[in-house]
């Protein structure tokens, strides 16, 4: 019998469309104490940079209406430790790995991409050009079509696996960026990263986050994500991993209708650490209820 949850992301076959959003799942070890990661369509790991990064001062998170701000600042142990310890462990869990990569310069991204794309179990890279919480690199690469395209070309030239470019919503026209990275050879897109926001402690007259601003995630951003995926799906031919506030099986199908071929669950992992297996278990029943035989029929099937 055909698996009703199977999807294709370009050349990549996934047994289901559910994966964690980068930064919300570490390198998988913590959640593996709660469930078998093999159940997931893939695991997207926390952003990896050439050298270890401490990240921003704390407080790094603040709750906001229906969501949260974070300004972690890409804290990670660096390429060497990730390749020596984190990825080999994850590969043993028998789950496809997508590595989110970040850097301050094009050369940084290229060096990380060249190495991590050749690690066992890695099926794709997610090019992070949309982190709003670092001084250099991050979102700076994702707000101009030319810069985004140049970086995409450079990473594509060295990567041995497909490259998904994770787009920032903090732009005037996300379609323009999507088209630029498509023309530069990207194999797919991830959208959206967090929306830049500010939370204030009234009594202290200070921002809650030490970094002043942070990235907004959670259910609060879901309509923005759906709108952007819809716009981009209509304008480019690349497969899309959709994310932004997904908290239920229903949300997953809405993202797929808007044009996502797979989805990433982020902040909801903090609310319910078992949410991804729960969604995967609920999807077949929901599809049956909707009279849908295969989840991939829904991709881009929004009627407007």
């Amino acid at each position, binding site marked *: 019998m055909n698996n009703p949850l199977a999807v294709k992301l370009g050349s990549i076959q996934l047994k289901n469309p559910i994966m964690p959003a980068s*930064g*919300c*799942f*570490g390198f998988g070890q*913590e*959640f593996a*104490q*709660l469930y078998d990661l093999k159940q997931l369509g893939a695991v997207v790991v*926390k952003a990896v940079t050439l050298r*270890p990064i*401490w*990240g921003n*001062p*704390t*407080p*790094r*998170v*603040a*709750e906001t*209406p*229906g*969501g*949260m701000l*974070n300004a*972690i600042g890409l*804290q990670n*142990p660096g390429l060497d430790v990730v390749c020596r310890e984190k990825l080999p462990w994850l590969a043993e869990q028998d789950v496809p790995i997508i590595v989110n990569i970040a850097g301050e310069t094009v050369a940084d991204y290229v060096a990380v991409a060249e190495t991590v794309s050749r690690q066992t179990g890695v099926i794709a890279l997610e090019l992070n050009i949309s982190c709003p919480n670092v001084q250099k690199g991050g979102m700076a690469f994702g707000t101009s079509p030319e810069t985004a395209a140049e970086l995409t070309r450079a990473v594509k030239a060295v990567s041995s696996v497909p490259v998904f470019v994770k787009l920032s919503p903090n732009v005037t026209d996300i379609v323009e960026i999507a088209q630029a990275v498509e023309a530069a050879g990207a194999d797919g897109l991830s959208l959206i990263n967090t929306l830049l926001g500010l939370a204030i402690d009234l009594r202290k007259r200070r921002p809650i986050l*030490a970094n002043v601003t942070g990235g907004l995630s*959670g*259910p*609060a951003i879901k309509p923005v994500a759906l709108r952007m995926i819809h716009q981009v799906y209509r304008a480019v031919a690349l497969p899309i991993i959709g994310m932004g506030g997904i*908290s239920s099986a229903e949300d997953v199908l809405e993202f797929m209708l808007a044009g996502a071929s797979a989805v990433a669950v982020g*902040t909801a*992992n*903090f*609310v*319910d*650490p*078992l949410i991804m297996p729960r969604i995967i278990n609920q999807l077949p029943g929901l599809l049956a209820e909707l009279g849908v035989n295969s989840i991939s029929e829904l991709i881009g099937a929004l009627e407007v």
Partner: protein
Amino acid sequence: MNKYLGTILNSARLTSNVFKLVVSVPELTENVTPGQFCQIRIATELSHDPLLRRPISVADYDPTRQKLTFIIRESGRGTKFLARLVPGQQIDLFGPLGTGFPVHRLVKGDRALLIAGGIGAPPLYYLARQLHANGVECATILGFRSHSESFLIDEFSQFGPVRVVTDDGTLGSCGNVCTEITAWTSEGLDWTHGFACGPLPMLQALQAQLAGDGRPVWVSLEKRMACGLGACAACTCRPANPNSTASGPRLVCKDGPVFLLGEVELGE
């Protein structure tokens, strides 16, 4: 750790803004170490707001009846939600999480000094109960802003002598936990291991006062966190000695919340 469904057995006010929740968690069979915490879910199936769980330290645990006690200060939207829970209502608990106090480092005959400031007292209560059961002598200093904000004094008194100190002198002596340590020490207080939980300025003052003391002191820290599991890296703190072997970032939720005083930098 795991996700558990609990039923509220009792909710009671201890002061105008501190309340106690006793929760029955029939499926909880794992060990709960003093200093560990649970992430209590606030969001419901019907509402995404407030969204995040609240990390609350365990104030007591009865393993034979699977009863967890939390003592919580009502301070924001999440804790206000918890304050409104009534007996019979169900809550979703994720825990026990984190690294607690090293209860078994102490043996019969050791003398523990417990130092609590305000809402820092609850995790030390569960600690005191276990230490006392293990034959460890417990002396406790409880600091509060004022008489009206004091709680748990009688409960700590079951385990040994208690000194209360208030900012305004309305109960016990007037001062803070540091002045009380000095005063009690001059009257012969003798301890081998220290344990502290309280507001950051209190912990910083303790660190300054006890610098070079040599006796181990463990402190329980608090930091804004999201996952509670060690995955999101929100609650990072820096090791005080960057050259130590574990010089990477330390996480309050996983490596802590209990640290040896001096192990990590005490800051926001």
